[in-house]
């Protein structure tokens, strides 16, 4: 897997950290972000979705 160009780190109780060569697109196919790193909300509670805003620290998200 030497050709891997993007890394996703699933932070326990926190966001999905994306680094490397990638682009974030919305469901309409529009590129909304392509600079690293990006922290994507995994807890469902962010007020700034799809990005993390630290809500996981307040809503008890732990997995």
């Amino acid at each position, binding site marked *: *897997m030497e050709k891997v160009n993007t890394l996703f780190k699933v932070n326990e109780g926190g966001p999905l950290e994306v680094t490397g060569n990638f682009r974030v697109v919305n469901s309409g196919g529009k590129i909304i972000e392509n600079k690293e790193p990006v922290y994507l909300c995994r807890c469902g509670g962010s007020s700034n979705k799809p990005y993390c805003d630290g809500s996981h620290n307040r809503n008890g998200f732990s*997995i």
Partner: protein
Amino acid sequence: MSDPRNRQYTNGEITVFWVPSKCIHATTCFRELIEVFNPGRRPWINMEGAPTRKIIEVTNKCPTQAIVWKQNTDLSEEERANLRQTVREEENPETLATPTGRSEEPVNETTKPTRIKPTNVRIMKDGPIVVEGQFKAIGGDNRELKPTTMTSFCRCGNSRSMPYCDGTHRKIGFTE
């Protein structure tokens, strides 16, 4: 050996095969053709909902081949027999705890283009993060997760197969 959860549906002309273990909840099918692919209904595939041409078009867009189709004239004996079977309890892509991340065929590096495309990170509306490309995923303990070129990560916080999507977002009414 086929999975007992697999299903097949026909309109007399073509048959659509549903392989839940391959589904990563990319939601392409029902966003494009809810008349046929409706996870809220049982059975979840209604072959009378659209013309054959349209069903083929959307089925071909499934990124993981969790849904595939065949002309009825091309069905095997076993597939023909399955069509006559009474459909048991229905399952659909939004209620199954689906193992995500499918195993890939070994990649022949010499036939691959040298330039790698950026990994596509798609934010599905009210749904998961669908990832496609040459990537690696690691857990909080830095251990590498199952290698794949396509998967979907939970965004609603409630999946039972974390960190992957299992369709729970729909049950809990997750919205942006």
